[in-house]
């Protein structure tokens, strides 16, 4: 049989992250040896390090977590190629130190943070969120980070700040996928200020209790669990508070298909496919997609009175 029902997988068959990474390192080592070059031995050096002092949070979903291996080998991260396995194969060239994140625009205290200072800015929490891709698949992922609100409060947004724009790294040397013009680089995403301040919106630096792997958006990314995955910008270098609604990369690429809001909504189809169901990675049967990805109780009030078919 080609497809195994999840129940049929013994717990002993699931590779723990440490062993998986061990194997991966071994194979990378072999690959590097074979190539006769160390290739800087991949800046992956940080990934795999345990993050200290991580607290569990009430936002811990009681659903089976997607295995580490699937979360780190099945990615959409066009900066490293458009194939699902491209990011895992190519993201080794990303250097996550030194790294800074500039926060600017409509704020009283603009500041450029060093990534290591950001890691100590607020207590790190583990949050187990659903992740729903606009393509129709989903995962359950234990992220580590702190609410974006913690960061935004410290820079004191002015009265003019209505939106937040996130800008990802633009460096084709580190991100080989950027040599192709498949999207306008750098990758830009945006949220309304109240969405950005929502307690569910997470600045994320870790996965499964460890430093975020490069292919998942290291060293720092956004996670907005009630929106389609592409709204959660990766490898962020700049956060701007702005007056006007930013134009995100996917909206620029195809405004009819990818709107600014892009809230998970089973009733509003993508023009080319249905969004009513999703395939949870690791499961055989499709499951129903939930309104706001199951976070309606927490976020529905943000959109009260809005026509979600119009503001898709």
């Amino acid at each position: 049989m080609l497809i195994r029902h999840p129940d049929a997988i013994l717990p002993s068959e699931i590779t723990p992250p440490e062993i998986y990474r061990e194997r991966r390192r071994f194979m990378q080592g072999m690959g590097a040896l074979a190539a006769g070059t160390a290739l800087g031995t991949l800046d992956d050096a940080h990934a795999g390090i345990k993050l200290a002092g991580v607290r569990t949070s009430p936002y811990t979903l009681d659903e089976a977590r997607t295995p580490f291996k699937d979360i780190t080998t099945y990615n959409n991260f066009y900066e490293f190629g458009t194939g699902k396995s491209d990011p895992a194969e190519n993201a080794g060239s990303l250097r996550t130190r030194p790294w800074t994140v500039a926060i600017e625009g409509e704020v009283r205290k603009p500041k450029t943070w060093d990534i290591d200072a950001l890691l100590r800015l607020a207590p790190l929490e583990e949050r187990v969120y659903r992740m729903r891709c606009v393509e129709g698949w989903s995962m359950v992922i234990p992220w580590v980070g702190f609410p974006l609100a913690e960061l935004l409060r410290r820079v004191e947004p002015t009265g003019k700040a209505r939106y937040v724009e996130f800008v990802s790294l633009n460096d084709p040397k580190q991100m080989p996928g950027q040599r192709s013009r498949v999207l306008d680089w750098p990758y830009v995403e945006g949220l309304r200020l109240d969405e950005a301040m929502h307690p569910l919106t997470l600045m994320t630096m870790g996965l499964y209790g460890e430093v975020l792997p490069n292919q998942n958006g290291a060293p720092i990314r956004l996670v907005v669990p009630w929106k389609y995955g592409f709204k959660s910008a990766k490898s962020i270098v700049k956060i701007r508070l702005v007056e006007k609604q930013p134009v995100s990369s996917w909206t620029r690429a195809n405004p009819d298909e990818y709107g600014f809001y892009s809230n998970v909504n089973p009733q509003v189809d993508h023009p080319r496919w249905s969004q009513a169901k999703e395939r949870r990675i690791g499961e055989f049967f499709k499951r129903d997609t939930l309104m706001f990805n199951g976070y309606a109780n927490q976020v529905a009030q943000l959109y009260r009175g809005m026509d979600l078919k119009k503001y898709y």
Partner: protein
Amino acid sequence: MGAVLRNPKLWIFAICLLPLARLIALGGSGGLGANPIEFITRSTGTWTLVGLILTLSVTPLRRLSGYANLIRYRRMLGLFSFFYACLHFVTYIWLDQFFDLAAIARDIVKRPFITVGFSAFVLLIPLASTSTHAMMRRLGRRWQHLHRLIYLVALLAVVHYLWLVKKDLTSPLIYGAVVVILLALRLPWGVRLMQALRGWGAAVR
């Protein structure tokens, strides 16, 4: 036995089964990745398109090489395209939608890329079912006319691929270019080009 092994049909048959063998091997070893159903759907779709392209290459290759015998392998290539199209279709109906007929019907009506892919599949059915010698004889000249449907099928298959990708059109455009070239070679100037190339090759030799 030796004569059987020397028959190219046997080898072509075996080679045409390799993509399926690979899927089975990967499935057995957990090598289909995080989303096995997507992998199988993509793979069977790709090999259907490759099969169509190989089938469409036979006539230009004959004109170019002068090996009239090549025609003997065309039916097998065409039937293998249909075989992979069936696997692709069954993957969608069974593994992807799990026989949710209402959802499948909605998909076919509402999703242009599925409408196009489904049409291409349906159009292949009369071609596969009239592929026997008996049917060729019975249909006579009409057989040839009927089997020109493969031109349309190949174009629909490319459109199906183009419309399903999110952004990166590179791969469907490459397949599309190959199909367009193979169809253009059937136009009068294409036929003349093939003949001229063959004449030139013969003169050089």
